[in-house]
């Protein structure tokens, strides 16, 4: 009996040990690049909006769009319905544009300092160094640093560039699709983004083209006291296919930085878009100081029949995450998917989920959401599935599971389901539980430490989602998950 007790105590002590270890675990992307950056003064007014537009050399129509959005934003209030503790943000205390000055005398090569930064992040900007053949659009603060493989993609007619370039080179396309899925009137942060958005990626896949490589953007916040407002627009024309990846990191700072992005996706007839995110913004320290406020509007419109849009996200970063990648299933027989793993630790707060709006008949959607809460974090799934009356024979399956790794963490599920006809079937299932002690015991018994066991169990738990990620990303995401889990077990 007493041996048993000793064992238990030892086990407890072991657990405590790596808890401490991991608490000391640093955010490995928390460095700052020492690079000369052009930052416009803090504050937000019409002049700032005009200045951003001028700095980017934008046409008149885009400035109009920004101004309209800005005027609309002034009429709105910051929403408070999320299950997060979002302190009021002083929008006048943020600089809305920061451009790293590239020190490249030859005019062709990118700044060595910048290259070092991205190398350190594991994003090589030199094409020849890239083995996996993935095209990257690297964005630091408000500007796109470099987009690789553009020429090779252009041969197929695929446009992959920063949105600022797209505005200049393909104004018709941008004009046609910008704001068509997420209008600036959509919500508070969408209006703000529409007014001050800086850079982001633009992708256009022409009819019948299957994009031969993964496209990817890498977002990096570097400058202090700035916000990042990127805007991504992806258009997949009839019968095309593209897989798009997004990654992000930020330096470790005591202040909170705002990241309010918009991602718009248009999927035409029989086209397919796969959008994967590994979100690893700086989450703040263990006392909850600093970290990124990640307040993002992501939405895709499956406009054509038989179109398909798939969102996959692995969320481990950000002090506050507030985002709902959604699918508007307008085309008949279109399909929407959402696979998410959200891990929160320390004092992180995540309120994330999706919306599946079924407008076309025979549309189907699948939602798989896995939440993992550790430390004193709050992790919520919030989702909506709506089937309108004329959308017959729709199908939705939703599964959202939550795993609690500490007695002080919270896991919540807020789904809304609306069905307005008698031929659609909607299912929702959710479970919340602690990590299975029998499984940990089983692993311990076979010589696997509790920490490794938790890593194994969580990775197994998240496998449904991880398996949807492209290969290279899946490995990365798995590592990230294990890393974030270290010491999260209490």
């Amino acid at each position: 009996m007493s041996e048993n007790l000793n064992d238990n105590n030892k086990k407890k002590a072991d657990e405590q040990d790596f808890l401490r270890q991991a608490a000391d675990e640093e955010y490995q992307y928390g460095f700052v690049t020492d690079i000369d950056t052009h930052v416009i003064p803090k504050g937000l007014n019409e002049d700032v909006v005009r200045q951003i537009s001028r700095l980017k050399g934008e046409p008149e129509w885009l400035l109009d769009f920004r101004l309209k959005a800005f005027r609309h934003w002034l009429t709105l209030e910051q929403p408070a319905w999320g299950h997060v503790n979002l302190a009021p943000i002083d929008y006048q205390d943020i600089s809305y544009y920061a451009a790293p000055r590239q020190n490249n005398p030859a005019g062709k090569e990118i700044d060595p300092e910048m290259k070092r930064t991205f190398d350190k992040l594991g994003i090589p900007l030199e094409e020849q160094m890239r083995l996996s053949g993935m095209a990257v659009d690297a964005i630091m603060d408000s500007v796109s640093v470099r987009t690789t493989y553009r020429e090779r993609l252009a041969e197929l007619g695929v446009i992959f560039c920063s949105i600022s370039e797209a505005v200049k080179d393909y104004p018709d396309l941008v004009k046609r699709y910008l704001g068509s899925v997420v209008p600036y009137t959509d919500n508070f942060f969408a209006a703000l983004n529409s007014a001050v958005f800086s850079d982001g990626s633009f992708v256009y896949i022409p009819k019948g083209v299957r994009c031969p490589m993964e496209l990817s953007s890498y977002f990096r916040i570097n400058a202090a006291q700035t916000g990042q407002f990127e805007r991504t627009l992806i258009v997949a024309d009839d019968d095309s296919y593209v897989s798009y990846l997004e990654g992000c990191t930020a330096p470790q700072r005591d202040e909170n930085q705002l990241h309010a992005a918009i991602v718009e996706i248009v999927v035409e007839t029989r086209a397919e878009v796969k959008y994967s995110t590994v979100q690893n913004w700086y989450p703040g320290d263990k006392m909850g100081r600093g970290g990124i406020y990640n307040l993002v509007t992501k939405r895709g419109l499956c406009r054509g029949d038989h179109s398909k849009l798939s969102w996959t996200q692995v969320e481990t970063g950000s002090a506050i995450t507030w985002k709902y990648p959604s699918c508007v299933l307008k085309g008949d027989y279109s399909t929407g998917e959402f696979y998410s793993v959200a891990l929160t630790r320390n004092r992180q707060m995540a309120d994330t989920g999706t919306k599946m709006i079924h407008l076309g008949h025979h549309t189907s959607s699948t939602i798989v959401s896995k939440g993992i809460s550790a430390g004193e974090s709050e992790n919520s799934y919030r989702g909506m599935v709506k089937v309108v009356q004329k959308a017959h024979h729709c199908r939705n399956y939703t599964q959202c599971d939550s795993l609690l790794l500490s007695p002080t963490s919270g896991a919540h599920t807020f789904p809304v389901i609306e069905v307005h006809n008698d031929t659609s079937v909607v299912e929702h299932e959710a479970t919340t539980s602690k990590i299975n002690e029998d499984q940990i015991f089983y692993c311990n018994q076979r010589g696997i430490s509790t920490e490794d066991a938790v890593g194994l169990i969580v990775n197994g738990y998240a496998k449904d989602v991880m398996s949807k990620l492209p290969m290279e990303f899946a490995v990365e995401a798995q590592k990230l998950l294990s890393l974030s889990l270290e010491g999260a077990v209490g």
Partner: protein
Amino acid sequence: MENSLTQYIELYREQRQAIEAAAPAALNALRGKALGVLETARLPRKGREDYEATDLNAIFAPDYGVNVNRVNLARNFTPAFTCDLPNLGTTPIYVVGDTIVVPDNRPDDGAIVATFAQARQLCPDVLNRYYGAVARLDDAATALNTLLAQDGLLVYVPRGVKARPLQLINLFNAGAPTMAVRRVLIVAEEQARLQLLACDHTPNTTQRYLSSQVVEIVAGKGATIDYYDMEESTPLTSRVASFYLTQEADSNVLVDAITLDCGTTRNDFYLDVAGERAESHLLGMAIAGAGQHIDNHTFIDHRAPRCTSREMFKYILADNAIGAFAGKILVRPGCPGTDAYQGNRNLVTSDTARMYTKPQLEIYTDDVKCAHGSTIGQLDEDALFYMRSRGISFDTARTLLMQAFMADVIDGVRIDSLKDRLHHLVERRLAGEAATCDNCPIHR
């Protein structure tokens, strides 16, 4: 639309003396607070959080008569009523409009069953201590009920007493549009037992009625309570009912909400699971057809360790019926061993019916087992085909499958004869007949 509360606040201000004269002090004591709430609060409108489908403001908007002067609405009602539920030996209590008739020939089983007015003499302490203690006054509908309530039914089961089953029959029979302010307070002390069957009927099918109900239930240590609430009313009847339950350690409570026929109904269930190892069962079932609107909102608040809650609501919607379900399970910090399940299954059988559902979990303790499941769908076509291939007509097959769908909610009933009766009533309801018992004098 205007704020519907205004007319009630005005009514209270004008008739304050009349309202308070007839009511026990415990009721009058809370009116000031209720008025304070109502002066700033609004009745939720459609689209508000937890009111996606139901507009409370519109429900309270029509000009209903309120029986301020305590006219005896039961005077034309012959209490020769006997419910033919076998082997129950229940004592029926009627509430006609808001006039309560408690028979004086109730066998003495140690429990006190009385109107609030009678309770002033019989057990004033119980009324003073528990009236309004469980209900949430910040809820506008509850505050309105508290502002206007003049009487109610008290069921007090002292320590260790096993009360005989009770039947509470709520009726609307007035010749003019009426709002009834109904109030029930149930206090079951340590190890006490109680079974109560409440049913709402509207024998007069030509008038508009509104029933504002607040039920407060206190389950003491180890108490066992069954509360069955059945609504069988008319499309002209509106009902806004709030159930508040607080449970002490080791208590076991079943609340069963059955809606067989309704007009516009909004039911709120607040379960406060406050004592260790308490067990709560919340069952619900709704069958709604043309012009019917049923909205159940539940909130189970787990604030003690090792408690179990089981919740299941099932709906069958036909024609242009609107069904809504919003359920929340909250597990507060420091409640290890909580085992909670919430289920909501819905059958939508017509193109114009609408179902809104919002099952929620909010969990702040890690050592718990919580789950919820929600589905909206249709009858299994394979099962239908199988039955038809065996010579069962389409309609019969459909009815059989719908009955089977509801069976597990009915099987949760803990009184056998009531279970059988419910199977029978659901069968009739699904076959398109009135969901009434055969020999019920109310429906003659």
